[in-house]
Protein backbone atom coordinates (compact mmCIF):
# COMPACT_ATOMS: atom_id res chain seq x y z
CA UNK A 1 0.00 0.00 0.00
CA UNK A 2 2.94 2.33 0.56
CA UNK A 3 3.58 2.11 -3.14
CA UNK A 4 0.02 3.16 -3.87
CA UNK A 5 0.32 6.13 -1.56
CA UNK A 6 3.60 7.19 -3.11
CA UNK A 7 2.22 6.75 -6.59
CA UNK A 8 -0.85 8.80 -5.88
CA UNK A 9 1.32 11.41 -4.17
CA UNK A 10 3.44 11.58 -7.29
CA UNK A 11 0.36 12.10 -9.46
CA UNK A 12 -0.77 14.61 -6.89
CA UNK A 13 2.44 16.57 -7.23
CA UNK A 14 2.01 16.69 -11.00
CA UNK A 15 -1.58 17.85 -10.70
CA UNK A 16 -0.61 20.12 -7.82
CA UNK A 17 2.07 21.78 -9.92
CA UNK A 18 -0.49 22.64 -12.55
CA UNK A 19 -2.90 23.94 -9.94
CA UNK A 20 -0.10 25.91 -8.27
CA UNK A 21 0.80 27.68 -11.51
CA UNK A 22 -2.81 28.72 -11.86
CA UNK A 23 -3.11 29.69 -8.21
CA UNK A 24 -0.09 32.01 -8.30
CA UNK A 25 -1.78 33.99 -11.04
CA UNK A 26 -5.12 34.09 -9.24
CA UNK A 27 -3.43 35.12 -6.01
CA UNK A 28 -1.58 37.96 -7.71
CA UNK A 29 -4.62 39.29 -9.56
CA UNK A 30 -6.75 38.91 -6.45
CA UNK A 31 -4.21 40.76 -4.33
CA UNK A 32 -3.20 43.45 -6.81
CA UNK A 33 -6.31 44.04 -8.90
CA UNK A 34 -8.69 43.35 -6.08
CA UNK A 35 -11.03 40.75 -7.51
CA UNK A 36 -11.40 37.00 -7.89
CA UNK A 37 -10.77 36.37 -11.57
CA UNK A 38 -13.25 33.78 -12.73
CA UNK A 39 -11.78 33.81 -16.22
CA UNK A 40 -8.42 32.51 -15.07
CA UNK A 41 -9.26 28.93 -15.96
CA UNK A 42 -10.19 30.04 -19.44
CA UNK A 43 -6.86 31.83 -19.78
CA UNK A 44 -5.33 28.40 -19.22
CA UNK A 45 -7.60 27.01 -21.92
CA UNK A 46 -6.60 29.68 -24.41
CA UNK A 47 -2.92 29.05 -23.73
CA UNK A 48 -3.39 25.35 -24.27
CA UNK A 49 -5.22 25.81 -27.55
CA UNK A 50 -2.87 28.43 -28.96
CA UNK A 51 0.02 26.10 -28.23
CA UNK A 52 -2.00 23.36 -29.90
CA UNK A 53 -2.32 25.40 -33.09
CA UNK A 54 1.36 26.24 -33.14
CA UNK A 55 2.26 22.62 -32.52
CA UNK A 56 -0.10 20.86 -34.89
CA UNK A 57 -0.98 23.32 -37.63
CA UNK A 58 2.31 25.16 -37.80
CA UNK A 59 4.17 21.96 -36.96
CA UNK A 60 6.63 23.67 -34.68
CA UNK A 61 8.22 21.66 -31.90
CA UNK A 62 6.68 21.61 -28.46
CA UNK A 63 9.39 23.70 -26.89
CA UNK A 64 8.37 26.54 -29.23
CA UNK A 65 4.66 25.91 -28.96
CA UNK A 66 4.86 26.12 -25.21
CA UNK A 67 6.07 29.73 -24.99
CA UNK A 68 3.65 30.55 -27.77
CA UNK A 69 0.89 29.30 -25.53
CA UNK A 70 2.14 31.48 -22.70
CA UNK A 71 2.38 34.53 -24.93
CA UNK A 72 -1.04 33.80 -26.32
CA UNK A 73 -2.57 33.66 -22.86
CA UNK A 74 -0.84 36.94 -21.96
CA UNK A 75 -2.26 38.56 -25.06
CA UNK A 76 -5.76 37.34 -24.26
CA UNK A 77 -5.51 38.59 -20.69
CA UNK A 78 -4.25 42.02 -21.72
CA UNK A 79 -6.95 42.29 -24.36
CA UNK A 80 -9.66 41.41 -21.84
CA UNK A 81 -8.23 43.85 -19.33
CA UNK A 82 -8.16 46.63 -21.91
CA UNK A 83 -11.64 45.87 -23.22
CA UNK A 84 -13.46 45.34 -19.95
CA UNK A 85 -11.66 45.50 -16.64
CA UNK A 86 -9.86 48.78 -17.29
CA UNK A 87 -13.20 50.46 -17.82
CA UNK A 88 -14.47 49.07 -14.54
CA UNK A 89 -11.44 49.93 -12.43
CA UNK A 90 -13.44 52.36 -10.31
CA UNK A 91 -16.17 49.82 -9.62
CA UNK A 92 -16.34 47.55 -6.64
CA UNK A 93 -14.50 44.28 -6.80
CA UNK A 94 -17.76 42.40 -7.08
CA UNK A 95 -18.64 44.09 -10.35
CA UNK A 96 -15.25 43.06 -11.69
CA UNK A 97 -15.92 39.54 -10.50
CA UNK A 98 -19.16 39.39 -12.44
CA UNK A 99 -17.40 40.86 -15.43
CA UNK A 100 -14.73 38.17 -15.18
CA UNK A 101 -17.47 35.56 -15.14
CA UNK A 102 -18.67 37.04 -18.42
CA UNK A 103 -15.14 37.19 -19.77
CA UNK A 104 -14.76 33.51 -18.95
CA UNK A 105 -17.75 32.66 -21.08
CA UNK A 106 -16.54 34.90 -23.87
CA UNK A 107 -13.13 33.23 -23.99
CA UNK A 108 -14.64 29.78 -23.72
CA UNK A 109 -17.11 30.35 -26.53
CA UNK A 110 -14.40 31.81 -28.77
CA UNK A 111 -12.25 28.75 -28.15
CA UNK A 112 -15.15 26.53 -29.03
CA UNK A 113 -15.96 28.51 -32.16
CA UNK A 114 -12.39 28.45 -33.40
CA UNK A 115 -11.35 24.94 -32.41
CA UNK A 116 -14.62 23.09 -32.04
CA UNK A 117 -16.22 21.39 -29.07
CA UNK A 118 -14.46 18.05 -29.28
CA UNK A 119 -11.49 16.78 -27.33
CA UNK A 120 -8.06 17.36 -28.77
CA UNK A 121 -4.65 16.05 -27.87
CA UNK A 122 -1.14 17.24 -28.59
CA UNK A 123 -0.01 13.76 -29.50
CA UNK A 124 -2.37 10.98 -30.50
CA UNK A 125 -2.02 7.69 -28.68
CA UNK A 126 -1.17 6.95 -25.11
CA UNK A 127 2.27 7.66 -23.81
CA UNK A 128 4.03 4.80 -22.08
CA UNK A 129 4.87 5.32 -18.45
CA UNK A 130 8.36 4.70 -17.20
CA UNK A 131 8.97 2.60 -14.14
CA UNK A 132 11.52 3.62 -11.58
CA UNK A 133 12.46 3.27 -7.98
CA UNK A 134 11.81 -0.44 -7.66
CA UNK A 135 14.84 -0.88 -5.44
CA UNK A 136 13.71 1.82 -3.03
CA UNK A 137 10.00 1.29 -2.67
CA UNK A 138 9.72 -2.29 -3.76
CA UNK A 139 7.90 -3.92 -6.64
CA UNK A 140 6.31 -2.81 -8.89
CA UNK A 141 7.99 0.55 -8.33
CA UNK A 142 6.59 3.88 -9.33
CA UNK A 143 5.32 4.94 -12.72
CA UNK A 144 5.64 8.27 -14.41
CA UNK A 145 5.08 9.41 -17.96
CA UNK A 146 7.77 11.43 -19.73
CA UNK A 147 5.26 14.25 -20.21
CA UNK A 148 4.70 14.34 -16.49
CA UNK A 149 8.42 14.68 -15.94
CA UNK A 150 8.37 17.59 -18.38
CA UNK A 151 5.53 19.14 -16.43
CA UNK A 152 7.37 18.85 -13.14
CA UNK A 153 10.55 20.30 -14.56
CA UNK A 154 8.70 23.03 -16.43
CA UNK A 155 6.70 24.02 -13.39
CA UNK A 156 9.80 24.10 -11.20
CA UNK A 157 11.62 26.29 -13.70
CA UNK A 158 8.69 28.69 -14.03
CA UNK A 159 8.14 28.93 -10.30
CA UNK A 160 11.84 29.63 -9.76
CA UNK A 161 11.76 32.30 -12.42
CA UNK A 162 8.75 33.93 -10.80
CA UNK A 163 10.49 33.72 -7.43
CA UNK A 164 13.57 35.46 -8.76
CA UNK A 165 11.41 38.07 -10.42
CA UNK A 166 9.33 38.81 -7.34
CA UNK A 167 12.25 38.79 -4.95
CA UNK A 168 14.99 40.58 -6.84
CA UNK A 169 13.56 42.89 -9.45
CA UNK A 170 12.15 46.34 -8.86
CA UNK A 171 8.89 45.50 -10.60
CA UNK A 172 8.61 42.26 -8.66
CA UNK A 173 8.93 44.08 -5.35
CA UNK A 174 6.42 46.65 -6.56
CA UNK A 175 3.99 43.83 -7.31
CA UNK A 176 4.44 42.36 -3.86
CA UNK A 177 4.02 45.82 -2.39
CA UNK A 178 0.81 46.38 -4.27
CA UNK A 179 -0.50 42.98 -3.22
CA UNK A 180 0.28 43.90 0.37
CA UNK A 181 -1.22 47.35 0.39
CA UNK A 182 -2.53 48.84 -2.87
CA UNK A 183 -3.43 52.19 -1.33
CA UNK A 184 0.00 52.73 0.13
CA UNK A 185 1.56 51.67 -3.17
CA UNK A 186 -0.26 54.49 -4.90
CA UNK A 187 0.76 56.97 -2.21
CA UNK A 188 4.37 55.93 -2.53
CA UNK A 189 4.42 56.74 -6.20
CA UNK A 190 4.55 53.18 -7.51
CA UNK A 191 3.40 53.11 -11.12
CA UNK A 192 0.22 51.15 -10.58
CA UNK A 193 -0.65 50.93 -14.28
CA UNK A 194 2.65 49.25 -15.07
CA UNK A 195 2.20 46.92 -12.13
CA UNK A 196 -1.21 45.91 -13.45
CA UNK A 197 0.21 45.09 -16.87
CA UNK A 198 2.95 43.00 -15.33
CA UNK A 199 0.43 41.24 -13.11
CA UNK A 200 -1.47 40.09 -16.17
CA UNK A 201 1.73 39.17 -17.98
CA UNK A 202 2.95 36.96 -15.16
CA UNK A 203 -0.41 35.62 -14.07
CA UNK A 204 -1.60 34.83 -17.59
CA UNK A 205 1.79 33.53 -18.66
CA UNK A 206 1.73 31.03 -15.83
CA UNK A 207 -1.89 30.21 -16.68
CA UNK A 208 -0.97 29.56 -20.28
CA UNK A 209 1.84 27.26 -19.20
CA UNK A 210 -0.49 25.47 -16.82
CA UNK A 211 -2.96 25.06 -19.65
CA UNK A 212 -0.38 23.42 -21.89
CA UNK A 213 0.65 21.14 -19.04
CA UNK A 214 -2.95 20.24 -18.37
CA UNK A 215 -3.47 19.49 -22.03
CA UNK A 216 -0.35 17.32 -22.02
CA UNK A 217 -1.40 15.44 -18.93
CA UNK A 218 -5.02 14.95 -19.88
CA UNK A 219 -6.51 16.38 -23.04
CA UNK A 220 -7.75 19.66 -24.51
CA UNK A 221 -11.38 20.60 -24.25
CA UNK A 222 -13.05 24.02 -24.20
CA UNK A 223 -14.14 23.41 -20.62
CA UNK A 224 -10.73 22.28 -19.39
CA UNK A 225 -9.83 25.47 -17.57
CA UNK A 226 -13.25 25.91 -16.06
CA UNK A 227 -13.13 22.45 -14.51
CA UNK A 228 -9.87 23.14 -12.76
CA UNK A 229 -10.87 26.60 -11.58
CA UNK A 230 -12.42 25.41 -8.36
CA UNK A 231 -9.26 23.57 -7.19
CA UNK A 232 -7.28 26.64 -8.18
CA UNK A 233 -9.44 28.90 -6.05
CA UNK A 234 -9.19 26.42 -3.22
CA UNK A 235 -5.40 26.52 -3.49
CA UNK A 236 -5.40 30.31 -3.56
CA UNK A 237 -7.54 30.55 -0.46
CA UNK A 238 -5.46 27.88 1.23
CA UNK A 239 -2.30 29.84 0.57
CA UNK A 240 -3.76 33.21 1.40
CA UNK A 241 -4.79 35.91 -1.03
CA UNK A 242 -1.96 37.97 -2.38
CA UNK A 243 0.56 35.37 -1.25
CA UNK A 244 2.09 33.82 -4.37
CA UNK A 245 4.30 31.51 -2.33
CA UNK A 246 1.33 30.34 -0.33
CA UNK A 247 -0.40 29.59 -3.60
CA UNK A 248 2.36 27.15 -4.51
CA UNK A 249 1.99 25.29 -1.25
CA UNK A 250 -1.78 25.42 -1.60
CA UNK A 251 -1.64 24.00 -5.09
CA UNK A 252 0.48 21.06 -4.04
CA UNK A 253 -1.71 20.32 -1.04
CA UNK A 254 -4.87 20.36 -3.13
CA UNK A 255 -3.35 18.27 -5.88
CA UNK A 256 -2.02 15.63 -3.53
CA UNK A 257 -5.24 15.59 -1.52
CA UNK A 258 -7.32 15.10 -4.63
CA UNK A 259 -5.22 12.19 -5.82
CA UNK A 260 -4.84 10.56 -2.43
CA UNK A 261 -8.58 10.70 -1.94
CA UNK A 262 -8.87 7.95 -4.52
CA UNK A 263 -6.68 5.63 -2.49
CA UNK A 264 -8.08 2.18 -2.06
CA UNK A 265 -7.66 0.76 1.42
CA UNK A 266 -7.01 -2.13 1.25
CA UNK A 267 -6.22 -2.47 -2.45
CA UNK A 268 -9.35 -4.35 -3.44
CA UNK A 269 -11.84 -2.04 -1.88
CA UNK A 270 -13.60 0.97 -3.28
CA UNK A 271 -11.50 4.14 -3.32
CA UNK A 272 -12.01 6.47 -0.39
CA UNK A 273 -13.62 8.93 -2.71
CA UNK A 274 -15.25 8.11 -6.01
CA UNK A 275 -12.89 9.65 -8.59
CA UNK A 276 -15.78 11.48 -10.15
CA UNK A 277 -15.99 13.54 -6.99
CA UNK A 278 -12.36 14.61 -6.91
CA UNK A 279 -13.18 18.31 -7.27
CA UNK A 280 -15.33 17.92 -4.19
CA UNK A 281 -12.17 17.16 -2.22
CA UNK A 282 -10.70 20.51 -3.18
CA UNK A 283 -13.96 22.14 -2.27
CA UNK A 284 -14.12 20.44 1.11
CA UNK A 285 -10.61 21.59 1.96
CA UNK A 286 -11.50 25.11 0.89
CA UNK A 287 -14.63 25.17 3.04
CA UNK A 288 -12.59 23.92 5.97
CA UNK A 289 -10.11 26.76 5.47
CA UNK A 290 -12.90 29.31 5.21
CA UNK A 291 -14.35 28.18 8.49
CA UNK A 292 -11.14 27.73 10.43
CA UNK A 293 -8.72 30.24 8.99
CA UNK A 294 -10.02 32.42 6.17
CA UNK A 295 -6.76 34.29 5.89
CA UNK A 296 -5.09 31.16 4.64
CA UNK A 297 -2.24 29.06 5.98
CA UNK A 298 0.20 31.90 5.44
CA UNK A 299 -2.04 34.74 6.61
CA UNK A 300 -2.94 36.56 3.46
CA UNK A 301 -5.52 39.31 3.55
CA UNK A 302 -9.03 38.40 4.54
CA UNK A 303 -11.67 41.04 5.22
Amino acid sequence: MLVDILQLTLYGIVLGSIIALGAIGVSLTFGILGFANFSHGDLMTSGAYIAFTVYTLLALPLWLAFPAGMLGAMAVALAIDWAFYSRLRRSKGLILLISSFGAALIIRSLVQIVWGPDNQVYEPGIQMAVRFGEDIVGSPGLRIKPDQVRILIGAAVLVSAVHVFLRYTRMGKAMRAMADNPDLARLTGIDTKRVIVWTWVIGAGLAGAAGVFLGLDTRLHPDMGWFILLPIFAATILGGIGRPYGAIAGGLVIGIAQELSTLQIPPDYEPLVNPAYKPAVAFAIMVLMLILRPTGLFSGRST
Partner: protein
Amino acid sequence: MELAGLISYLIFFLTFVGIYGLLALGLNSQWGYTGMLNLGIAAFFAVGAYTTAIVTTAPTDLHAGGLDLPFPIGMAAAMVTSGLLALGIGLITVNLRADYLAIASIGIAEIVRLVLKNATEVTNGVRGLPSIPRPLTDLWPGYGEALYLLIVLLLVVVVYLASERAYRAPWGRVLRAIREREPAARAMGKNATLFRLQAFVFGASIMGLGGAAYAHFVGFISPEAFDPLFATFLVWVMLIVGGSGNNRGALIGAAVVWLIWTLTETAVQQLPENMVTQAAALRTLLIGLFLQAVLILRPRGILPERPPTEVAPPAK
Protein backbone atom coordinates in the same frame (compact mmCIF):
# COMPACT_ATOMS: atom_id res chain seq x y z
CA MET B 1 -47.00 32.93 -39.14
CA GLU B 2 -50.41 31.60 -38.21
CA LEU B 3 -52.13 33.22 -35.28
CA ALA B 4 -52.49 29.99 -33.33
CA GLY B 5 -48.82 29.24 -33.81
CA LEU B 6 -47.89 32.75 -32.75
CA ILE B 7 -49.98 32.54 -29.62
CA SER B 8 -48.55 29.16 -28.82
CA TYR B 9 -45.06 30.56 -29.17
CA LEU B 10 -45.93 33.55 -27.05
CA ILE B 11 -47.21 31.30 -24.30
CA PHE B 12 -44.02 29.28 -24.44
CA PHE B 13 -41.96 32.46 -24.34
CA LEU B 14 -43.87 33.98 -21.44
CA THR B 15 -43.72 30.80 -19.40
CA PHE B 16 -39.96 30.88 -19.60
CA VAL B 17 -39.98 34.55 -18.67
CA GLY B 18 -42.03 33.58 -15.64
CA ILE B 19 -39.64 30.82 -14.63
CA TYR B 20 -36.65 33.08 -15.01
CA GLY B 21 -38.57 35.81 -13.27
CA LEU B 22 -38.77 33.58 -10.23
CA LEU B 23 -35.04 32.92 -10.39
CA ALA B 24 -34.30 36.62 -10.71
CA LEU B 25 -36.57 37.48 -7.79
CA GLY B 26 -34.75 34.90 -5.71
CA LEU B 27 -31.39 36.31 -6.71
CA ASN B 28 -32.53 39.80 -5.87
CA SER B 29 -33.33 38.64 -2.37
CA GLN B 30 -29.71 37.57 -2.06
CA TRP B 31 -27.71 40.08 -4.06
CA GLY B 32 -30.07 43.01 -4.16
CA TYR B 33 -31.08 42.86 -0.52
CA THR B 34 -27.88 41.81 1.19
CA GLY B 35 -25.10 41.98 -1.35
CA MET B 36 -24.42 38.25 -1.23
CA LEU B 37 -22.87 37.22 -4.51
CA ASN B 38 -24.37 33.85 -5.38
CA LEU B 39 -22.78 32.30 -8.46
CA GLY B 40 -24.35 28.95 -7.74
CA ILE B 41 -27.93 29.68 -8.72
CA ALA B 42 -27.79 26.51 -10.78
CA ALA B 43 -27.53 24.45 -7.61
CA PHE B 44 -30.78 25.68 -6.12
CA PHE B 45 -32.48 25.66 -9.50
CA ALA B 46 -31.44 22.04 -10.01
CA VAL B 47 -32.26 20.87 -6.51
CA GLY B 48 -35.73 22.33 -6.79
CA ALA B 49 -36.32 20.73 -10.16
CA TYR B 50 -35.07 17.31 -9.12
CA THR B 51 -36.97 17.40 -5.84
CA THR B 52 -40.29 18.02 -7.46
CA ALA B 53 -39.52 15.44 -10.11
CA ILE B 54 -38.72 12.79 -7.54
CA VAL B 55 -41.78 13.65 -5.50
CA THR B 56 -44.36 13.91 -8.24
CA THR B 57 -43.43 11.27 -10.79
CA ALA B 58 -44.91 7.83 -10.87
CA PRO B 59 -42.97 4.95 -9.27
CA THR B 60 -40.11 3.79 -11.47
CA ASP B 61 -36.85 1.90 -11.36
CA LEU B 62 -34.94 4.64 -13.10
CA HIS B 63 -34.57 6.87 -10.12
CA ALA B 64 -35.46 7.41 -6.52
CA GLY B 65 -38.79 8.63 -5.26
CA GLY B 66 -41.63 8.26 -7.66
CA LEU B 67 -43.97 9.18 -4.87
CA ASP B 68 -46.62 10.31 -7.32
CA LEU B 69 -47.66 13.14 -5.09
CA PRO B 70 -49.61 16.14 -6.37
CA PHE B 71 -48.05 19.21 -7.90
CA PRO B 72 -48.37 21.64 -4.96
CA ILE B 73 -46.53 19.19 -2.72
CA GLY B 74 -43.81 18.92 -5.29
CA MET B 75 -43.49 22.69 -5.36
CA ALA B 76 -43.40 22.93 -1.60
CA ALA B 77 -40.84 20.15 -1.31
CA ALA B 78 -38.70 21.90 -3.90
CA MET B 79 -38.70 25.07 -1.84
CA VAL B 80 -37.88 23.16 1.30
CA THR B 81 -34.92 21.24 -0.12
CA SER B 82 -33.35 24.22 -1.81
CA GLY B 83 -33.94 26.23 1.34
CA LEU B 84 -32.21 23.57 3.41
CA LEU B 85 -29.25 23.48 1.02
CA ALA B 86 -29.01 27.24 1.31
CA LEU B 87 -29.15 27.00 5.07
CA GLY B 88 -26.22 24.62 5.06
CA ILE B 89 -24.15 26.75 2.74
CA GLY B 90 -25.25 29.95 4.40
CA LEU B 91 -24.18 28.86 7.85
CA ILE B 92 -20.67 28.40 6.51
CA THR B 93 -20.41 31.39 4.24
CA VAL B 94 -22.85 34.07 5.32
CA ASN B 95 -20.26 36.17 7.11
CA LEU B 96 -17.51 35.73 4.58
CA ARG B 97 -16.48 38.49 2.29
CA ALA B 98 -18.55 38.46 -0.85
CA ASP B 99 -15.93 37.07 -3.20
CA TYR B 100 -15.40 34.06 -0.95
CA LEU B 101 -19.12 33.46 -1.02
CA ALA B 102 -18.98 33.66 -4.80
CA ILE B 103 -16.28 31.01 -4.94
CA ALA B 104 -18.01 28.80 -2.42
CA SER B 105 -21.28 29.06 -4.34
CA ILE B 106 -19.60 28.01 -7.56
CA GLY B 107 -18.21 25.08 -5.63
CA ILE B 108 -21.66 24.08 -4.43
CA ALA B 109 -23.04 24.28 -7.92
CA GLU B 110 -20.27 22.03 -9.18
CA ILE B 111 -20.78 19.53 -6.38
CA VAL B 112 -24.50 19.45 -6.99
CA ARG B 113 -23.89 18.89 -10.68
CA LEU B 114 -21.46 16.08 -9.91
CA VAL B 115 -23.95 14.44 -7.58
CA LEU B 116 -26.74 14.71 -10.12
CA LYS B 117 -24.56 13.09 -12.74
CA ASN B 118 -23.12 10.35 -10.57
CA ALA B 119 -25.72 9.39 -8.00
CA THR B 120 -27.52 7.45 -10.65
CA GLU B 121 -29.79 5.47 -8.35
CA VAL B 122 -31.31 8.71 -7.18
CA THR B 123 -31.26 10.85 -10.25
CA ASN B 124 -30.73 8.51 -13.20
CA GLY B 125 -27.53 10.40 -13.90
CA VAL B 126 -26.99 11.93 -17.30
CA ARG B 127 -29.92 10.09 -18.79
CA GLY B 128 -32.21 12.38 -16.91
CA LEU B 129 -35.63 12.19 -15.34
CA PRO B 130 -38.50 11.87 -17.78
CA SER B 131 -42.27 12.07 -17.55
CA ILE B 132 -42.62 14.82 -15.01
CA PRO B 133 -46.36 15.48 -14.91
CA ARG B 134 -47.94 18.77 -15.89
CA PRO B 135 -50.60 19.76 -13.38
CA LEU B 136 -54.29 20.17 -14.16
CA THR B 137 -53.96 18.85 -17.71
CA ASP B 138 -57.51 17.47 -17.59
CA LEU B 139 -59.04 20.71 -16.46
CA TRP B 140 -58.92 22.55 -19.75
CA PRO B 141 -58.19 20.13 -22.57
CA GLY B 142 -56.20 21.59 -25.42
CA TYR B 143 -55.26 24.64 -23.41
CA GLY B 144 -52.81 22.99 -21.06
CA GLU B 145 -50.00 25.38 -21.99
CA ALA B 146 -52.05 28.46 -21.34
CA LEU B 147 -53.22 27.09 -18.04
CA TYR B 148 -49.68 26.34 -16.97
CA LEU B 149 -48.65 29.84 -17.95
CA LEU B 150 -51.34 31.18 -15.66
CA ILE B 151 -50.04 29.04 -12.82
CA VAL B 152 -46.50 30.30 -13.35
CA LEU B 153 -47.64 33.90 -13.57
CA LEU B 154 -49.62 33.43 -10.40
CA LEU B 155 -46.51 32.16 -8.66
CA VAL B 156 -44.55 35.14 -9.93
CA VAL B 157 -47.16 37.57 -8.65
CA VAL B 158 -47.30 35.92 -5.24
CA VAL B 159 -43.54 35.86 -4.88
CA TYR B 160 -43.25 39.42 -6.12
CA LEU B 161 -45.80 40.69 -3.63
CA ALA B 162 -44.22 38.75 -0.78
CA SER B 163 -40.79 40.07 -1.67
CA GLU B 164 -41.98 43.64 -1.97
CA ARG B 165 -43.73 43.37 1.35
CA ALA B 166 -40.56 42.15 2.96
CA TYR B 167 -38.50 44.85 1.28
CA ARG B 168 -40.63 47.68 2.61
CA ALA B 169 -40.98 46.19 6.04
CA PRO B 170 -38.48 46.84 8.82
CA TRP B 171 -36.85 43.53 7.84
CA GLY B 172 -35.97 45.00 4.47
CA ARG B 173 -34.63 48.21 5.96
CA VAL B 174 -32.33 46.28 8.24
CA LEU B 175 -31.05 44.28 5.30
CA ARG B 176 -30.35 47.39 3.27
CA ALA B 177 -28.47 48.87 6.19
CA ILE B 178 -26.42 45.70 6.49
CA ARG B 179 -25.69 45.80 2.79
CA GLU B 180 -24.50 49.38 2.94
CA ARG B 181 -22.49 48.52 6.05
CA GLU B 182 -23.96 51.35 8.02
CA PRO B 183 -22.71 51.69 11.58
CA ALA B 184 -26.15 51.10 13.04
CA ALA B 185 -26.27 47.73 11.34
CA ARG B 186 -22.79 46.85 12.50
CA ALA B 187 -23.79 47.60 16.06
CA MET B 188 -26.28 44.78 15.75
CA GLY B 189 -23.51 42.29 15.28
CA LYS B 190 -24.85 38.78 15.54
CA ASN B 191 -28.29 39.67 14.38
CA ALA B 192 -26.92 40.80 11.07
CA THR B 193 -25.93 37.21 10.42
CA LEU B 194 -29.45 36.03 11.05
CA PHE B 195 -30.97 38.58 8.69
CA ARG B 196 -28.58 37.79 5.88
CA LEU B 197 -29.15 34.09 6.38
CA GLN B 198 -32.88 34.60 6.17
CA ALA B 199 -32.59 36.55 2.95
CA PHE B 200 -30.25 33.95 1.52
CA VAL B 201 -32.50 31.01 2.37
CA PHE B 202 -35.59 32.85 1.21
CA GLY B 203 -33.97 33.66 -2.11
CA ALA B 204 -32.77 30.10 -2.54
CA SER B 205 -36.18 28.59 -1.91
CA ILE B 206 -37.63 30.88 -4.57
CA MET B 207 -34.98 29.61 -6.95
CA GLY B 208 -36.02 26.11 -6.01
CA LEU B 209 -39.59 27.05 -6.81
CA GLY B 210 -38.40 28.27 -10.19
CA GLY B 211 -36.69 24.94 -10.69
CA ALA B 212 -39.89 23.11 -9.91
CA ALA B 213 -41.83 25.31 -12.31
CA TYR B 214 -39.24 24.51 -14.96
CA ALA B 215 -39.38 20.78 -14.32
CA HIS B 216 -43.14 20.58 -14.69
CA PHE B 217 -43.10 22.76 -17.78
CA VAL B 218 -40.47 20.88 -19.72
CA GLY B 219 -41.39 17.44 -18.40
CA PHE B 220 -37.83 16.13 -18.59
CA ILE B 221 -34.73 17.23 -16.72
CA SER B 222 -31.09 16.24 -16.81
CA PRO B 223 -27.88 17.69 -15.39
CA GLU B 224 -27.22 19.39 -18.74
CA ALA B 225 -30.18 21.69 -18.26
CA PHE B 226 -28.50 23.25 -15.24
CA ASP B 227 -25.37 24.30 -17.01
CA PRO B 228 -23.82 27.43 -15.45
CA LEU B 229 -24.63 29.41 -18.57
CA PHE B 230 -28.37 28.95 -18.64
CA ALA B 231 -28.97 28.50 -14.99
CA THR B 232 -26.63 31.03 -13.41
CA PHE B 233 -25.13 33.50 -15.84
CA LEU B 234 -28.33 34.34 -17.63
CA VAL B 235 -30.10 35.13 -14.36
CA TRP B 236 -27.27 37.46 -13.39
CA VAL B 237 -27.50 39.27 -16.70
CA MET B 238 -31.23 39.64 -16.10
CA LEU B 239 -30.81 41.14 -12.67
CA ILE B 240 -28.08 43.54 -13.75
CA VAL B 241 -29.89 44.63 -16.88
CA GLY B 242 -33.18 45.07 -15.09
CA GLY B 243 -31.66 46.87 -12.15
CA SER B 244 -30.39 45.04 -9.11
CA GLY B 245 -31.78 45.81 -5.73
CA ASN B 246 -35.35 45.96 -6.86
CA ASN B 247 -37.92 43.32 -7.70
CA ARG B 248 -39.54 45.15 -10.56
CA GLY B 249 -36.13 45.41 -12.12
CA ALA B 250 -35.66 41.68 -11.69
CA LEU B 251 -38.84 40.93 -13.63
CA ILE B 252 -38.18 43.47 -16.33
CA GLY B 253 -34.68 42.14 -16.69
CA ALA B 254 -36.01 38.61 -17.02
CA ALA B 255 -38.32 39.64 -19.83
CA VAL B 256 -35.78 41.79 -21.67
CA VAL B 257 -32.90 39.38 -21.45
CA TRP B 258 -34.98 36.34 -22.32
CA LEU B 259 -36.12 38.28 -25.37
CA ILE B 260 -32.53 39.08 -26.31
CA TRP B 261 -31.50 35.48 -25.66
CA THR B 262 -34.31 34.29 -27.95
CA LEU B 263 -33.27 36.81 -30.58
CA THR B 264 -29.71 35.47 -30.52
CA GLU B 265 -31.16 32.13 -31.49
CA THR B 266 -32.84 33.68 -34.52
CA ALA B 267 -29.74 35.65 -35.36
CA VAL B 268 -27.53 32.62 -35.22
CA GLN B 269 -29.85 30.65 -37.46
CA GLN B 270 -29.29 33.17 -40.22
CA LEU B 271 -25.69 32.13 -40.46
CA PRO B 272 -24.32 29.78 -43.10
CA GLU B 273 -24.89 26.10 -42.51
CA ASN B 274 -21.47 25.13 -41.24
CA MET B 275 -21.54 27.68 -38.46
CA VAL B 276 -24.90 26.68 -37.06
CA THR B 277 -23.34 23.79 -35.19
CA GLN B 278 -21.52 26.41 -33.17
CA ALA B 279 -24.81 28.08 -32.41
CA ALA B 280 -24.61 27.60 -28.69
CA ALA B 281 -21.10 29.01 -28.50
CA LEU B 282 -22.03 32.00 -30.63
CA ARG B 283 -25.04 32.79 -28.49
CA THR B 284 -22.89 32.52 -25.37
CA LEU B 285 -20.41 34.91 -26.92
CA LEU B 286 -23.12 37.42 -27.75
CA ILE B 287 -24.73 37.34 -24.33
CA GLY B 288 -21.30 37.58 -22.66
CA LEU B 289 -20.46 40.68 -24.69
CA PHE B 290 -23.89 42.07 -23.91
CA LEU B 291 -23.28 41.75 -20.17
CA GLN B 292 -19.93 43.54 -20.44
CA ALA B 293 -21.59 46.35 -22.36
CA VAL B 294 -24.24 46.74 -19.67
CA LEU B 295 -21.69 46.66 -16.85
CA ILE B 296 -19.61 49.33 -18.52
CA LEU B 297 -22.31 51.58 -19.93
CA ARG B 298 -25.28 51.26 -17.63
CA PRO B 299 -24.39 49.24 -14.54
CA ARG B 300 -27.42 50.39 -12.59
CA GLY B 301 -29.72 48.78 -15.12
CA ILE B 302 -33.02 49.78 -16.59
CA LEU B 303 -34.68 50.45 -13.23
CA PRO B 304 -32.11 51.57 -10.71
CA GLU B 305 -32.96 50.86 -7.12
CA ARG B 306 -35.05 53.48 -5.41
CA PRO B 307 -35.38 52.59 -1.78
CA PRO B 308 -38.62 53.70 -0.11
CA THR B 309 -38.21 57.12 1.54
CA GLU B 310 -36.85 56.69 5.01
CA VAL B 311 -39.09 57.95 7.77
CA ALA B 312 -36.57 57.50 10.55
CA PRO B 313 -33.89 60.21 10.97
CA PRO B 314 -30.50 59.41 9.43
CA ALA B 315 -28.13 57.51 11.70
CA LYS B 316 -25.40 59.65 13.32
